[in-house]
Structures are given as structure tokens and as C-alpha cells.
């Protein structure tokens, strides 16, 4: 019979104030096979772990139960300690008597009885545990970065600089993301393009980076260290391998397509480069707006191109790549104006959003940096900035704070004052949140030096009245309602995840949170990893954040990837499913229920087989198997039955 040792933790008062831990140790100590049982104040401390190691050796233990907090916290801590003392780590189990007992009950007697049963159940489980060895898999030392905004760019550069190959996939024809659309960045008022383009160029030139723009991830399969990804490169109808980027084709195109880069303030041809600093600086043809594709006529670009780079017969291409890790840096979007019904629903021409204002501010933008309003091109003298347009509004829009708007609205108002000296900006706000480095000082500069009027109150309604845009708001500090007849209104719209992020989440089988942002493995301590092995997160796709945070997070994600690649092989948890060939009758029910595609049917043998490296031990197949052929290692039907019997009082 296995020699089992039981250690019951007080967890200070967390467990001991509700559960009589000495009694638990005493009662469990009476079970056959339990040769040692004790209680201790903090098992996770160094002396606590030393106690486990000591007793494993002294009492010749074959298995250990630590009755304490959730296994999520310290299972690996204690298993490592067990390993150090020569015990197979999988012969150590945690009995959760905190989250599942002391923290949810108040009756000491009943809680103690429940704790005793919880520990007894784990003793019964452990009696039948097998010693296991970790599953060792090879690693492909190549990374995939999805998204070419500042976060994706930074992650790609960091991984590439460490000597590993990176594939950077970006949906748009050029990398740069939203940062390329910005005019100046807070708090330094650096020209955004000026600080971004060196990084973009570095990506384009880097020997370790395969840059695939105008491309999307179509499919991904495999597991950490061993992914196979299919990437679809959209037909650009321009042969980039010979195109010199001279731009002549873009100059002759007669089509007028609204520029999404310029937030529809300008147009470009059907053959276009999204912005002058694009990387790669090669054009694509927007098939839907191309006269040649629609009518068979025109073809001016083809005639103009001196080297015959225009190829109307080009087709989408699908590429296959093997990678070991994926960084998801898919970026953000902003709440469409059409959702803000109380602010004109996007139908009032002089109500625009923050990104649109950036384009007006930008020297290379549609108005060459002059602030002119959309309706008639006049220079606006009264500009109202509305913060929290859609954010902090659980009833109608988004419950969360979009984090960047207080800073960029202050920036907008400041820059507007610089361009229009006699202009008057107003900012309607709920709070001013300027927590970053130098941010509070920036806000004070704007507030004190620049004549910007800050009004604390929400805007109730914005509507058109003749040539003016009327803003109805409140100033809670004076207690008065405010009406402003504005020339231009700029809404700081909520930061939201991109629609493509939801599709990506499904394709990659990763998780998103309730607001659609990518879910991190732990909100405090694991912000750059997904809970799915091999997937890392960077940038605003994980939650609203500013540029320094995106860059920092990208570096963090890159570091995780580099750390993965620096190992020889990857070791995975062996508590996975397995198939008893003598019992499996080939009913195939288990094949389709696996969420990780870890099971296949072996036609020759007529049985199901498991890919241990892909298996995450979720147990779906075990539930689906009606004959018990598939079991989970160290959590078999018999073990579960014994645990239930013990939990019910042991008859």
C-alpha cells in the first residue's frame, strides 16, 4: 500500500479561522496508508516546502497531499519541491480546503467536516495515481506575429534581433497601424510618423523578418512549438517583385475611392498606396472600385507602368509556414459614430471622431495640417471635444474606460490652439485620467497655459441647427446646463476590439473576454500570455492602452517567445487522455468532441488514438467514451468513483 503523507495548511487565518486544521490532520491520519499527517501555518513558505521534502525522505513517502489553497496557485510549487526530494511530481496532489471550503462557509463544525472529506477524497485519488513523466516535444524556433501596428512591429523586431526568424502578417497593404494615422503623440508631441517610420523601415529591411502585408491568417493547427499556419495573401494585381514603387500608376488612376486611412476625408485611386511612408511602398488595386474590373475598360495603370508590374490576372496565394509561437497584436478600432445616436449617429457632418481629427492635424493629411471642418472647409473657431463618447457607459455602450482619450483630447485641444490662435476649445469630461509618466504635467500645461475650457459634465445631445452644430451639456461644478453652438465637434469614441479579432479568436482557438478584447492568462501576473500555450498577446488587442504600454507589452511578449525558443525541448503536463487498445471498439464518438483536434481514428487498428502533445487534458473524450477505453491519466473513472464515495462520507 502506498505510504501517503498529508500536510494541512492553516494559510494563516484564511483556512484556520474557519476549519479546525488540527482535527483535519488527525482524522485523515487515521486512514489506512496515511503514515504521516500534520498541520502547518504556511505550507507555501520556504520552511513549509522544506517540511514536505524532509518528510518525503524521512517517512519514505510514496505520495503527498497538501491540503491548502487552490491548485492553480501552488500545485507546481509543491510538485517541484516533491521532485527535489525524489518523489515523482504527479504523486503530489493539492486538496483545496480554502476556495472550496474555508472561504465559502462560516459554520466551523460543518466546514471542518467538509474539509476532512475533501482531503479524504484526494487521498483516495492519490492511492491510484501513477508516476508520470512529462511529455517532451520539439520546438520550431520561428515566430508568427499577427498585426503590423506598433505592438506587432516592436514584437517582430525584438524577436528578430534576438536571432530568430519572424513572419509578420498584416491585413492592410502597409504596416504602421493606427499610429501611422496620428499627427503628434502625447506627452512629448513627437511627430508620430517620425518616430514610427524608422521602426517600419527596420522591419522591412530586417533579414530575420518575412513581411507579409495584404495578408491574413487563414488557418492554424498544431500546438505550442509546433504550429502549422496557412496565410492567405490577397491578390494585389501588382507584381511586387518587380514594382519599383515609382507611384506613376497611382497618379493616373481616374477612380475616386474614399481613403480609410484619411477617415474618408480624401480619396485615392483604385490603385493606391495607403500613405506616403508605407512599408512596403508598393501599391495594391482595390478590385471593387477598379473601373477595369467593373467594366473591362480603362487599364490606364497598366499602360502607364513602364515595367509591366500591373497584373490583372493575379490571384490570391496561400502560403504554409511552420512556427513555434504566435504573437497576436491585432490592434483596436474605435466605436463607430453610427452607434452614438444621441451625438448625431454619424449623420452630422461636423461631428467627427478623434482619429479623424488626427488626420486634420497631420501635415500629410487631407488638409495639409490646417484645421478645416468637413461641411464647408471653414476654419472652426469654436471646437467642442467630448470625452467618454461611448466609454464608461454600462447602460448603453461600453462599461470600461478607454484609457487614452483624456490624454489625446488634451493633446487635440492644445494642438488646435497652436494652429488656430483665436480658436476656443472646450472639453467636456467626467474625470481627467492622466496617470502615465509626464501625463499629469501635460494636462496641467494644457489647462493652465493654453486657455482650454474644461467643463465637468456629460454631453446629453448633439444635433445640427442650420450651419452650426449644437452641443447640450452640463457643468456640474457650477451646476448649470451648457449650450455651445460649435463649428466642429470631436468625439473621443470608445476603443473597441476590431471585428477581425473575433474571427481570429475562433481560428486560433484562443479566448476573448466579455468586451471582446483578448484574454490574458492572469490579469495581474501574466498580462502578455494567452491561457492557450504558444499564444502571446501584445498591444491594444488585449485592452485599451497607449503607445508606451503597447511597446512594453510587445517587448514582454517577445521575451516570452525568446524564452520558449531558448529551450531545447518543451515539456508538457502528462496528465492527458490515453486509449486502452484492448477496450476501444471504434465507435468514434470521442473523435469529434475533442476541442483541440487531438484525436484521430486509426483505420487499420479500428481504434481511436490520441496525440499526447496536442491533448490538454480537458476530459471531453473521457466523458464521451461509453466503454471506458479512454481515461485520463491520474483521473480515471475508478479514481473519481472513489473520490465521490469519500466525499459522501465513505460508505
Amino acid at each position, binding site marked *: 500500500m502506498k505510504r501517503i503523507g498529508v500536510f494541512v495548511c492553516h494559510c494563516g487565518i484564511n483556512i484556520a479561522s474557519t476549519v479546525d486544521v488540527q482535527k483535519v490532520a488527525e482524522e485523515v491520519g487515521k486512514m489506512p496508508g496515511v503514515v504521516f499527517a500534520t498541520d502547518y501555518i504556511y505550507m507555501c513558505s520556504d520552511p513549509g516546502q522544506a517540511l514536505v521534502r524532509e518528510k518525503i525522505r524521512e517517512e519514505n513517502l510514496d505520495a503527498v497531499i497538501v491540503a491548502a489553497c487552490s491548485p492553480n496557485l501552488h500545485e507546481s510549487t509543491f510538485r517541484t519541491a516533491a521532485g527535489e526530494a525524489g518523489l515523482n511530481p504527479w504523486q503530489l496532489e493539492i486538496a483545496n480546503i480554502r476556495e472550496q471550503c474555508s472561504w465559502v462557509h462560516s459554520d466551523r463544525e460543518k466546514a471542518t467536516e467538509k474539509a476532512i472529506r475533501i482531503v479524504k477524497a484526494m487521498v483516495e485519488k492519490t492511492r491510484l495515481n501513477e508516476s508520470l513523466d512529462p511529455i517532451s516535444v520539439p520546438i520550431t524556433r520561428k515566430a508568427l506575429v499577427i498585426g503590423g501596428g506598433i505592438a506587432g512591429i516592436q514584437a517582430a523586431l525584438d524577436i528578430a534581433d534576438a536571432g530568430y526568424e519572424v513572419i509578420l502578417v498584416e491585413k492592410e497593404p502597409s504596416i504602421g497601424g493606427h499610429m501611422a494615422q496620428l499627427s503628434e503623440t502625447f506627452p512629448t508631441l513627437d511627430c508620430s510618423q517620425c518616430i514610427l517610420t524608422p521602426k517600419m523601415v527596420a522591419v522591412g529591411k530586417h533579414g530575420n523578418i518575412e513581411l507579409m502585408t495584404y495578408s491574413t491568417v487563414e488557418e492554424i493547427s498544431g500546438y505550442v512549438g509546433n504550429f502549422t499556419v496557412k496565410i492567405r495573401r490577397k491578390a494585389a494585381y501588382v507584381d511586387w517583385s518587380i514594382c519599383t514603387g515609382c507611384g506613376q500608376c497611382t497618379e493616373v488612376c481616374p477612380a475616386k475611392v474614399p481613403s480609410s486611412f484619411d477617415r474618408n476625408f480624401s480619396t485615392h485611386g483604385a490603385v493606391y498606396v495607403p500613405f506616403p511612408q508605407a512599408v512596403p511602398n508598393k501599391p495594391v488595386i482595390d478590385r471593387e472600385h477598379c473601373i477595369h474590373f467593373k467594366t473591362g475598360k480603362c487599364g490606364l495603370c497598366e499602360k502607364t507602368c513602364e515595367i509591366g508590374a500591373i497584373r490583372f490576372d493575379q490571384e490570391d496565394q496561400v502560403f504554409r509556414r511552420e512556427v513555434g509561437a504566435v504573437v497576436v497584436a491585432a490592434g483596436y478600432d474605435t466605436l463607430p459614430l453610427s452607434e452614438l445616436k444621441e451625438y448625431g449617429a454619424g449623420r452630422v457632418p461636423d461631428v467627427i471622431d478623434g482619429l479623424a481629427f488626427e488626420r486634420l492635424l497631420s501635415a500629410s493629411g487631407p488638409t495639409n495640417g490646417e484645421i478645416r471642418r468637413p461641411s464647408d472647409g471653414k476654419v472652426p473657431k469654436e471646437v467642442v471635444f467630448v470625452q467618454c463618447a461611448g466609454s464608461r457607459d454600462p447602460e448603453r455602450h461600453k462599461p470600461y474606460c478607454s484609457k487614452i482619450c483624456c490624454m489625446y483630447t488634451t493633446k487635440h485641444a492644445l494642438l488646435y490652439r497652436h494652429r488656430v490662435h483665436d480658436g476656443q476649445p472646450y472639453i467636456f469630461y467626467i474625470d481627467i485620467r492622466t496617470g502615465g509618466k509626464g501625463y499629469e504635467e501635460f494636462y496641467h500645461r494644457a489647462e493652465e497655459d493654453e486657455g482650454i475650457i474644461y467643463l465637468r459634465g456629460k454631453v446629453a445631445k448633439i444635433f445640427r441647427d442650420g450651419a452650426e452644430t449644437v452641443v447640450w451639456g452640463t457643468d456640474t461644478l457650477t451646476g448649470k446646463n451648457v449650450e455651445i453652438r460649435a463649428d466642429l465637434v470631436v468625439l473621443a469614441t470608445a476603443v473597441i476590439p476590431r471585428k477581425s479579432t473575433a474571427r481570429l479568436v475562433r481560428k486560433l482557438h484562443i479566448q476573448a473576454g466579455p468586451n471582446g478584447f483578448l484574454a490574458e492568462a492572469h490579469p495581474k501576473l501574466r498580462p502578455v500570455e494567452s491561457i492557450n500555450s504558444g499564444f502571446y498577446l501584445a498591444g491594444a488587442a488585449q485592452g485599451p492602452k497607449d503607445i508606451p504600454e503597447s511597446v512594453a507589452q510587445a517587448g514582454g511578449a517577445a521575451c516570452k517567445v525568446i524564452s520558449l525558443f531558448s529551450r531545447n525541448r518543451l515539456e508538457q503536463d502528462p496528465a492527458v487522455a490515453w486509449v*486502452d487498445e*484492448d*477496450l*476501444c*471498439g*471504434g*465507435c*468514434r*464518438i470521442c*473523435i*469529434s*468532441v475533442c476541442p483541440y483536434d487531438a484525436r484521430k*481514428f486509426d483505420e487499420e487498428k*479500428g481504434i481511436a488514438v490520441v496525440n499526447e502533445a496536442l491533448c490538454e487534458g480537458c476530459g*471531453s473524450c473521457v*466523458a*464521451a*467514451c*461509453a*466503454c*471506458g*477505453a479512454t*481515461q485520463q491519466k491520474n483521473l480515471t*473513472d*475508478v479514481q473519481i*468513483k472513489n473520490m465521490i464515495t469519500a466525499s459522501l462520507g465513505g460508505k
Partner: protein
Amino acid sequence: MGKPKVAFYWAASCGGCEIAVLDIGDRLPVLAEAADIIFWPCAMDVKYDDLRAMEDDFIDVCLFNGAIRNSENEEMAGLLRKKSKILVAYGSCAHEGCIPGLANLVSEEDILDRSYISAPSVENPGNVLPEVKTETPEGELELPELYDTVYTLDQVVDVDYYVPGCPPVADRTWEVLEAILDGTLPGKGNVVGAGSKIVCDECSLEKKETGISGFVRPHLLEPEPDRCLLEQGVYCAGIGTRSGCGALCPSVGMPCRGCYGAPPGVFDQGAKIVSALGSIIDSTDPDETDAIMSGIPCPAGLFYRFSLPHSILRRKITDGYED
């Protein structure tokens, strides 16, 4: 040495297992030649006193079919255990409870009331119920006591071997009898005369790994030939039933009922089948799932049709039940 002495007995059963023995057909005379059949109430004139008079372990092998429903069944089980070297639970009733075992879903009171008072074809104006002891002019009559709970053979005596099936198919029965005659039975406690996988292993219908979007009764569907019945919505217990019968029922277009009982890796047949079916219901919408499940009006009776007394459930709690 003499020929081996063989006994057959029937407790709470339908008689089908007796026919199953006869079903070995022209191998019956071979059996009669090779063995001494010394106790077989169905086929010979024997009395219980003949059995009581035998020495312990006088019988070499007893094939006991039927469940334990009343005190007579239990008494005979005890007696045959004493008088037999090897006791075999033959057929599903003795093995796992089978159809009589479904009576564990009701109480003894319900049974007596239904059989003697409320059934439409019963005329019993005095509401007379059978008693264990009854005074008649001729003397006191004793009837066996009806138990509230149906037991399997191994829940009342030690059993050496199990032969599953309702009934066990003829070829498997003969294999067991041959093993008995040749002395080649495996170690005690084993299931014999059956396979060690599930019915799907012997079934040639094609599986396409599709889910279930509705349950339909066999007579209401013209099934696609050569295609798995369960995938077509016809409840087939083959996924959770021990092999050995050669997938007889599916081979003629009828779903497996589960009569060979739990496969080797399973201690509760019904629970495993429920879990498996639940995994492949083709819907995540609660209302839709409810509609699909309404195609199974009596889950306990269906999934535990043959194994209820032997399962973790054992019986439904009803007032006045005695363990």
C-alpha cells in the same frame, strides 16, 4: 472420474435462458452425453428436496439464470451455491438484473396494487392481495415473500462466472459449456462467453462521426442502410454494451438494446451511455437540447434497461423500501 454433474435453475426470469440452452441445438445430445444433468426444473422432474439431500459441492457446475425477486429465488440461490463447486450467473437477469430489474423503479406496493387491483383486466372487488401465509380450509399455505428490491445473483451469493446476454447467443453458450467440460474456464470472477470490447467492434455499419439532432423510434424511420443507427437518431446502446453477440440486432437493422451489459472498463452502463450521448447532442441552445432530449421519455428505463440493479443507482427511493 465420472462425467461432470451439471445443474440449470431459473429464478425471476422469462424462461428465455432455458430456451437459449436448448438453442445449442444438435449440440444438446453432445452435452447430454458428456455431462450428467442432475437438476433442471424446467426440463426434468426434480424436487427441491432432491437438491437439499445432495452433499455440498456435489454439483460441478450450476448455470443459474434469473434475478432474485423473492425469498424462494434467494433460498435457491443459497442452496445452489452450497451444493455447487462452480456457480455461473447465466443470462442478463442473473448477471445485472435485466428486465425484472426495472421493477426497482417502483415500490412493492405499486407492483401488488397494479397486478391485483388496478390493472384494467383485473376483477378483484375485494382488493385481495397475496400474503406470505394464508389460512385455507386445507391448512396453511405459504407463498414466497415478494422482495421490494430485485437483486442480481452476486448481490446474494458469491458468483464464479458471468455469461451475459438476454439471452446469451447459442454459440457463446456452447463455448462456455465446452470450456466447462474441457476444464478450460479462466480465473474466477470473469465474464465468459462474451467479448472484451463493445458491440461497435463487431458491427459493420458505417460511422461518419456526426452528432445527434433528434431521437426517433426505430419503427418511425426508414434508416439509411449500412449506416450507423445511432448517428441517424435511433438510440443504439452498442457504444456502451459488451461485445460477443456478433452485433446481431444492428446486422438486421435494429438498434442494440444493451443486453450484454456493461463493457469491461465500466461499472455503470447507464451512466456511461448518458455521458456519451450528452457529448454528441448536436446543439448548444438550451431549448433545442430540451426538444432533442424529449425524444427519450424514460431515460432510466432506456439507459438502464438491463443493468439497473447492478448499477450505482440500484433502485429508486420509494417510501417503505427496504435495502
